[in-house]
């Protein structure tokens, strides 16, 4: 059986890396006595995968996880069993039987929405915040990016779907950001924020939260 789970990752759990989350869910499923299916081969491992990686330090309201089981289980019961044993900060909010669907979760992803709370080092006007964002979005956004073939200049503007910023205080702001997120890559929120801060000529501290991942729902209804 292919079981798809949607879960939240928040509080201190945002400091647990993507790789560590793999182990965390594997162990939680064993504690919850879910019948995990394993790969064949030299070092068998559970068939468990996430739709998308989440950057270390980023919280999320909705991540997706895909797991193969050797026997059918009631999705809601699996969810309850898992929630009893998961650490605080990780919580399953939905469990779905994927039926015969073969496509990977990653291939179904389209985009993701983020909310960024920003605390600037100094006071800043609401107009400047918005105008700078408009300016940033009108042209290319060229950033330095680590790629397999070394550090390169990359234009990330095509990855940005929308970005709205509003001041929430004298030196605080909230950014609603929507970016591409597909199997071939996605918007790097941190790089986008760097480009914005550079254009503003300011520094600050950010908390990023992924609000949702938009998926193609025609194949698997989530």
């Amino acid at each position, binding site marked *: 059986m292919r079981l798809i789970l949607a879960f939240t990752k928040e509080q*201190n*759990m945002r*400091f*647990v890396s993507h790789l560590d989350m793999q182990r965390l869910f*594997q162990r939680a499923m064993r504690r919850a006595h879910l019948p995990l299916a394993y790969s064949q081969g030299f*070092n068998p491992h559970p068939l468990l995968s996430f739709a998308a990686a989440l950057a270390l330090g980023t919280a999320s309201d909705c991540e997706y996880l895909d797991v193969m089981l050797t026997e059918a289980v009631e999705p809601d019961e699996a969810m309850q069993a898992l929630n009893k044993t998961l650490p605080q900060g990780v919580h399953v909010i939905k469990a779905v039987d994927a039926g015969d669907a073969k496509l990977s979760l990653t291939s179904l992803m389209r985009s993701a929405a983020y909310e960024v709370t920003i605390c600037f080092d100094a006071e800043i006007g609401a107009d400047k915040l918005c105008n700078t964002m408009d300016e940033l979005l009108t042209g290319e956004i060229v950033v330095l990016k680590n790629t397999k073939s070394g550090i390169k200049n990359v234009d990330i503007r095509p990855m940005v779907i929308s970005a709205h910023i509003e001041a929430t205080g004298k030196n605080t702001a909230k950014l609603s950001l929507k970016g591409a997120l597909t199997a071939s890559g996605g918007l790097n929120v941190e790089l986008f924020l760097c480009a914005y801060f550079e254009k503003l000529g300011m520094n600050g501290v950010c908390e990023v939260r992924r609000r949702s991942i938009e998926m193609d729902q025609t194949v698997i209804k989530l």
Partner: protein
Amino acid sequence: MDTELLERILHDVEKPARYIGGEVNMRIKAVENGKLLRFALCFPDVYEIGMSHLGSRIIYNVLNEREDTYCERSFTPWPDMEKAMRENGIPLYSLETKTPLGAFDVVGFALLYEMGYSNVLTMLELAGLPLFSAQRDETMPLVMAGGPCVCNAEPVADIFDFFVFGDGEEVMNDVMDIIAECKAAGNDRHMLLLRLAQVAGVYVPAFYRSEYKDGSFIGHTKLEEAAPDTVERRVVQDLDSAGYTGDLIVPYLNIVHDRIALEVFRGCTRGCRFCQAGYIYRPVRERKPETIIEQADSSLDCTGYDEISVFSLSSGDYSHIHELVPQILERYEHDRVSVSLPSLRIDSFLKDDLEHIQRIRKTGLTFAPEAGTQRLRDVINKGVSEDDLLRAVRDAFEAGWHGVKLYFMIGLPTETDEDVLGIAELARKVSQEFYSMPRELRGKGLRCTVSASTFVPKPFTPFQWEPQISVDEVLRRQALLRNALKGIRGVEFSCHFSETSRLEAAFARGDRRLCKVLVSAHRHGARFDSWDEHFNKPAWEEAFAENGLTVEGFANRSIGQDEALPWSVMDPIVSHEFLAEERKKAYSGQITRDCRKGCNGCFGTRAAEFCSFEGAERT
């Protein structure tokens, strides 16, 4: 504790999961009413190392089983986190409740290796506590330590208020009982320490003064009548009823030993003469297979781990090993639990066990012949032969392994170049063993790692009087071996950094004059000394120079057998006479039998009191 500030800095440090706590099975207790005794269990290394220490896991559970005590954990922050904490004024805190260490009743360290000492100071300083016990007042926590380094606590004697010597399960309860009573009675620290000093296994260093003459240690003078002349090591007689780990904390990070450790017995009967653990955990005490299976059941259930390690100093010697391993594998085969057997002796396992282990997953195989020639293996009483080793690797290769690690030591007493070259000869034979097998029967390509560490003489071993060889000599012998290993098919060489081995030797056998050296080194930036990339050689050189001492004066010195030993205030139960006799036998290449085969009298007249090992005849 400003948790918002803490969270902010966690965005900027490597592996922030080291600092968050909140793992599955972490103990949670209500602290608001202020009635609990608060104990901060500290490990002077990074989280992934500290969480791999079975002893700390046991003590964590033993203390938390007490209704009056809450034991929380703290580890050394990695230098990036230390810097961030200092810059932001965040004190060292416990993972459980994020309480600054200064607010605890007791701060207790596990001392497993001398190279962790500088991290103890880092942690105390980050906690805002003065480094020397004499500078800490009544409002501050008691600072104590346990673990194998307590064998010779003198190099850190001025740092700690007290030490516990030996198995911790019982003595920690005795200690907490007294602390609880004294706290309730409003006793001052001196009174408390006086009472603690009367508990068997507790060492209060301030109650003894070290005496020196002409730059050498000549003995201790007892300053408090109530303190014992020597501190007797604590021995838990019945491991089946002793506390164990309880519900194991499940770390987020991939820690070094990320599996369930089932301790099948404590102690070792072999009597390798270089091995401190072989003497200070005597006598052998086994757990019953039923107890072990019970612990396996509950640990697997509460953690979700899929790997069990059968743990001891020499697991192949466990009386029931050939029943236990298949039993575990069978019992949990459906759950895909694999078993690893670290510390297997070459001469102790059967091919069948290997095949069992292989059924689930291939783990690495490590063999420790320790020395390259039979002559030297007899000197150190490592009762294995070349045939044993070759048979063992052949079995392993036939069972499909193609990676083996061979552990050796360089600089053992009486070692000659012939012994060093003998290591290469052994490696050559292992390689030949592999490549002489039919191609279709053997694994891909041989990966045989020859690892040579530097011998460090340790207290309470027959070699406690021996000098360590000089750094130049270590380097020469390493080069000799590296050269001799060249061109042997499938063999790689790795060796240990010689400077840290020398420092380890100095602190292993040092006296209280090293306390000031340690503090100086800390001020000059020494931390994480066991990590080669952090080892700060200039800091240590300056520290010794400032205090008018040399590292060679401690590490490379041969101690006369009639000289006073700084660690003689500790009583390991194994008799001084026995160790001296073993030393003599070493020089004549005489073997001492495994004490499962008959008592060798290591406890002298106290055998009946301490050793109930079955089959051990009394002498």
